């Protein structure tokens, strides 16, 4: 299962730690964490695999479990159109922080 995949932008520009993605009618600014998720989701990725990869790169998140942090970030990126669910997420978005 590879439930999230990135949506290709019209253009991408990296400036230091910031990544800018231009879509048809909007610009999205990514943090290093967002940029890592964008790269890892190039061919679609399961959120559990994404959590493991982000843990290797960024270590444990300070205020939540790795799973909670990944689901929150994926939800945010899907909301601004950087990621798309390849199938319906297994739980409602407003419950995602309880997902392991």
């Amino acid at each position: 299962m590879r439930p999230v995949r990135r949506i290709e932008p019209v253009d991408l520009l990296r400036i230091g730690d910031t990544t800018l993605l231009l879509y048809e009618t909007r610009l999205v600014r990514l943090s290093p964490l967002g940029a890592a998720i964008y790269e890892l989701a190039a061919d679609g990725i399961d959120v559990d695999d994404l959590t493991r990869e982000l843990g290797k790169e960024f270590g444990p998140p300070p205020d939540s479990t790795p799973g909670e942090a990944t689901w929150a970030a994926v939800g945010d990126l899907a909301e601004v159109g950087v990621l798309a669910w390849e199938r319906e997420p297994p739980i409602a978005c407003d419950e995602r922080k309880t997902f392991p």
Partner: protein
Amino acid sequence: MALDLYGLGTRTRVTFSGASASEVEDAVRHAWVRCLAPIDPPDVETLDTEPLVAELADASADTSASTIARSELPALLQTLTQKVTYAKIRAQTGRLLMMHAGGVAHPETGSSIAFVAPGGTGKTTLMRRLGNRFGYLTDETVGVDDVGIIRAYPKPLSIRTAPTTTQKGETSPDDLRLLAAPSAPRLGRIVLLARSDDHEGTPSVEHLDLADAIAALAPETSALSSLPRPLHRLADLLGTLDPTVRLRYREVDEILDLVAGWLAP
């Protein structure tokens, strides 16, 4: 009966029809006086936009996207300005980097500033005030080619006829005694205008780094995503300019000398 209206590197043919065609043509000729002849140097390509038809008639005669019919002359002129601008932007989509901005140029050096702001937030007022000291480029859309030259669009200034109305009068830059644009004006700086009645104290100038500048400018562009590698084009342009700034102020008089300093040779 027709006029060619130049600007933004384009030519828009407007044909006048109906019983009042001559009256409308005279009014357009007066308001668009700076756009009646080619503006760019002869070696610069001028694109033809789709043609338009203007008629003083009931709006029900407004039967196609290219036909403008209004029963009152001020409304007809206002809508014509909007349609001409849209036509020019469409023609330059994928070619010029276009910003919602007013622009003025130093009359001798050609160095120019684009003042970026959404509609109704002070561009035209500032252009009226600066245009007595610097060449008037436009109050609406600054279009920049791939080497940083602005394709001037010295259209009539759309000036609100009363504070409580949405109707605007199309006013000739000659009537406002604005200076003419120099040939081949070169963009030297972009200023993001942030005028507010709530601003307190003297104007403030905030320097934006490249990422902040692009993030602030992108929403104020037209058809940015149609350019080849648009973010790179914008970044390359910004890299050749003086630092992009956000200028917060309340009264336009407070920023005139500051801006004049930026344009000084």
